[in-house]
């Protein structure tokens, strides 16, 4: 049963080999040239940096991540249903479509709530217009 994963392992090995070879090659060939301190400074706009690079970021990113987790789990629930629909319909079990629709309706209740709360509006100005 696990023999089906042999090609996957081989592909991962080959991809890793190619990636490491390319980077390693340029690491070896691109070494030992002019070393200037300026070169390794953090790039901004030609000016010396006045502060650190890691600052607080908009909370919107976290909201998107949380909403994504919720919906991704819902999609994960839908996957086995979607794959088995055809077989069940062929057996004359038409209720399976109703099952899916009920799930989608329940999902859309949460979706409408998030929409009205403004979870999908990136800028507040955008939501007013």
């Amino acid at each position, binding site marked *: 049963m696990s023999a089906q994963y042999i*090609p996957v392992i081989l*592909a991962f090995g080959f991809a890793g080999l190619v990636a490491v070879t390319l980077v390693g090659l*340029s690491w070896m060939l691109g070494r030992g040239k002019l070393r200037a301190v300026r070169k390794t400074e953090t790039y901004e706009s030609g000016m010396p940096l006045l502060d650190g690079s890691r600052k607080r970021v908009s909370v919107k990113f976290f909201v998107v991540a949380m909403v*994504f987790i919720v919906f991704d789990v819902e999609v994960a629930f839908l996957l086995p249903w979607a794959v088995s629909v055809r077989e069940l319909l062929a057996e004359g079990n038409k209720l399976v479509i109703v099952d899916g629709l009920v799930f989608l309706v329940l999902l859309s209740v949460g979706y409408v709530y998030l929409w009205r709360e403004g979870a999908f509006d990136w800028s507040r100005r955008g939501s007013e217009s």
Partner: protein
Amino acid sequence: MWAELAVTTAKVVVVALAMVTTVPIMVWVERRGAAFIQDRLGPNRVGPLGLFQPVIDVVKLIFKEDVTPAAANKGLYYLAPLISLGVAMVTFIVIPFGAGHDVSLFGVPLRGLIVAPDLNVGVLYLLAIGSLSVYGIVLAGWSSNNKYSLLGGLRSSAQLISYELAMTLAVLGVLMATGSLHLSDVVARQSGAVWHWNAVTQVIGFAVFLVAAFAETNRLPFDLAEAETELVAGYHVEYSSMKFACFFMAEYLNMATASALTVTLFFGGGTLPGVTLTGWLGLFVSTAVFVAKMCFFLWLFVWVRWSLPRFRYDQLMQLGWKGLLPLATLNLVWVGIAMTMGWLR
């Protein structure tokens, strides 16, 4: 046993190298295509029609000085491009590039030009591994210790996960119609006639999938992650030499994978309506048909890039969450009703 392993290894190497070869070709097509769209010549000095320009560029990039920013987190900084390129090189192994179920090589049945024909998670593998690419981008953005990189990486991760939902929902419609996770079954169900193609029976799903594919590959009009006018180069500002090229190659590989996936899921893969061929001829013809269809979508990527302006970030998020997500769900409902009514084959 050993012969089987040898054939599998050969398939891994052949398919991976073929996909990697599309990268320099696409770089050339992109630059020449852009030039023609903008009414100029583009690179035309190195080799016939400038065809060797990408090769020269690779040689140049390998010999470039390998600069590591002093402020960077070294380990993650080196790991990020490896993840990006590595992931881009393993996503396409479940895509059937050609038929040939009756062909055998050295006594081993070839089972089509597909690296992992037996993988029972099929499409799920593709979606799972495909979404790993976000790690490369986020790690690059974080470890570079640069404002532009950080913003580019964050933007990109939010964009990728937003559009992944719509993409997965669009794929669900295809899975419903197929009843299997094997991509070869998806192709087999679309054979016979053009109106069996999922692009015809599920127009909404196809439209959602195509838009989401553009967003997932970070291509214009959705290249907010590296919006030059705002973020210089986004998550790879601090990268140079071959490490930069890794991100670059990964982008073009993802583009090729997205094109191949679109052809497989919605355009009948390597099947030609009304033509049934067997043996080696069938293998070659179906591969040629697949590549021809794929070329169209690859050109579409270039065409769109040089024709449409970039989205604003709030517009991008609104399109993903308020536009594509309901549309993809609508497609699911449509497929469900059509299947109950027996409209779909």
